[in-house]
């Protein structure tokens, strides 16, 4: 009997797939169930954000920033506004800084809720996804109260905010925070400790610190590997140095440090920490202050360039802005954290089964809008 001819099968997890968090194409070379090589193909959601920005005035670029990372739009707008303000040397009133921190952290909670929920969905647990989105709806209601929109805000303007918060916002936020801690306990009960979930996620796709730093991974995925870099602590911007919060690191509680379970659990812990920050900011919120007082009439930064980095929900969001003195930027480049996070998928994904590749992709938490810009 002759030998059977066996070869690798090239499988296409195409742009349309329930689990690839957007229009991402993964070319998998598999031998049976084991994947030997993963090649991500991106560009299906490219909308020329950086080219648009060359023709728009500075304040008109803000809504476009939100549309890149649509799950964490406040964070994107925040980073951009801070970059331009630093170029122009604008001093912000205290109230604006506190409100911005509140919105950025609420947005971080909302984004992590999506990440946690969709990770559960990828491994088959459908119910925690619905629970996470129920909480997210409460946050989106808060955003709707303040800015008028649920997902894409154009709220954090250069030099301030678009509107002041309405009466009743602070009370509603406190209500949400009081409810939220119980919910996190619920997620831990139904998903985090679940043996099947642990079997699916622990020891899968271990990302060592060296590999992570070499590939430029930032954010919760990096901290899950044990590397203690959080831009809110290492290079505090805005008023983050006034708040007391921990930086959760991956400890390998259910497996090795840096596996998918760690990446998931770091996000759950980060939600708790963000809730702490919001509570402190609400307690310290100054009642006086006009949110529009520092918004300049004409935004014309002096000639020069700046690279400003902030800690988005996914990692280090960087804006490199070049100005030639006009009211239209010469160049805006966005360093998207999800792009660098995705680049590591082949390194940690090869050698695992197809189901594991999906779990690893879910744990990296990518948003294609940000990757493709």
């Amino acid at each position, binding site marked *: 009997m002759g030998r059977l001819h066996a070869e690798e099968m090239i499988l296409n997890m195409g742009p349309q797939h329930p689990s690839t968090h957007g229009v991402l194409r993964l070319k998998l070379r598999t031998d049976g169930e084991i994947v030997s090589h993963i090649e991500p193909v991106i560009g299906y959601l490219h909308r020329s954000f950086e080219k648009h920005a060359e023709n*728009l005035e500075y*304040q*008109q*670029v*803000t*809504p*476009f920033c939100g549309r890149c990372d649509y799950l964490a739009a406040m964070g994107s707008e925040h980073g951009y506004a801070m970059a331009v303000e*630093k*170029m122009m040397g604008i001093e912000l009133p205290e109230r604006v800084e506190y409100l911005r921190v509140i919105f950025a952290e609420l947005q971080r909670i909302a984004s992590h809720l999506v990440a946690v929920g969709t990770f559960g969905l990828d491994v088959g647990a459908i*119910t925690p996804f619905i629970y996470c989105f*129920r909480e997210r*709806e409460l946050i989106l*209601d808060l955003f*709707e*109260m303040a*800015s*008028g*929109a649920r997902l*894409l805000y*154009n709220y954090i303007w250069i030099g301030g905010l*678009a*509107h*002041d918060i*309405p009466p009743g916002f602070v009370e509603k936020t406190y209500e949400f925070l009081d409810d939220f801690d119980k919910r996190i306990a619920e997620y831990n*009960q*139904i*998903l985090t*400790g*679940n*043996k*099947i979930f*642990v079997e699916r996620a622990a020891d899968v796709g271990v990302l*060592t*610190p*060296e590999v992570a*730093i070499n590939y430029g991974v930032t954010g919760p995925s990096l901290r899950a*590997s*044990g*590397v*203690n*870099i959080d831009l809110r602590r*290492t*290079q505090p*911007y805005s008023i983050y140095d006034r708040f007391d919060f921990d930086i959760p*690191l991956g400890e390998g509680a259910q497996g090795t*440090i*840096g596996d998918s379970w760690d990446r998931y659990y770091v996000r759950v812990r980060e939600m708790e920490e963000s809730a702490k920050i919001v509570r402190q900011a609400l307690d310290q919120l100054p009642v006086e202050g006009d*949110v*529009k007082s520092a918004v300049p009439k004409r935004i014309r*930064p*002096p*000639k*020069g*360039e*700046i*690279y*400003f*980095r902030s800690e988005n929900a996914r990692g280090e969001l960087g804006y490199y802005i070049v*100005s*030639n003195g006009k009211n239209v930027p010469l160049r805006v480049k966005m360093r998207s954290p999800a792009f660098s996070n995705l680049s590591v998928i082949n390194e940690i994904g090869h050698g695992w089964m197809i189901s594991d590749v999906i779990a690893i992709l879910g744990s990296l938490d990518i948003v294609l809008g940000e990757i493709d810009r």
Partner: protein
Amino acid sequence: MSYFSNITNAITTLVDGMKVTMGYFVRPREHVTLQYPDEVWPIPSRNIGVGELDSYNTIRSKLTVNIDDCIGCKACERACPVNCIHIDAYKGTPEDNLQITSNGTQVKLLTASFIIDMSECMFCDLCTPPCPENCITMTPDYQFISNDNLKTEVTPEERWRDKNLLIYQFSKVSEDERQRRKAEAVEAAKAKAALMAAKKAAAAKAAEEKAALAAQVAESAPVSAEPVAEVIATPVETVKPEAETRVDIPIETITVSKPEESTVSVSDSPVTEASETPPTKENENG
């Protein structure tokens, strides 16, 4: 023995999870579904108004314009990032009877056509703050469905290209008036262009004659060092692209110790400041 502890751990955690879902199953009244359109989520509605309450806003949906207050300044058209507002404003004549807005401003331009293309609008709300009269606002009317065309005769093509229903025309000026004004404006522009062209031609002709005269003079006179080109060519400024200066962003040195210790030391480097590039040299007559 870890085999057995695995099994018992599995059973405990699974039963824990089942308790959560059972808890929700027996309390169906805590559902979060809103049965639209019977139940509608209350929109946070605050008086948007003007004056001291104009820093609040309702939810951002369809745009509306109070055309009586519009002075035709096109501030909203300039502010829109996607160019979805198209305004035609012409100089007002006495027979137009232009009104005074509710803020007391005398309207000087006739806004013949104020079109907002809602299918292009991205609901960013950048058009409402620049308006000096506060006449353009975003309303909380989020339902873009209309039952009107179910009753009237709509051709299948019109129904397919529903986009027409989304182009809002706010000006109350009649269509004939609009066309007339537009035609007038086109005529005026043509006339102006013709005038400019004539002036340019005349200037060019005059310069040519002068050059011919000067050439004649230069033939008979000794060669002077006067540059002839100075008369003819108007100085054209060409802007050279700015000299790029490389700004070296210092790379942070990170030392990584073994994963168990998880200590990372980061050398401090401030955020790169914008460095002033030297002023560019603009070229004088090439």
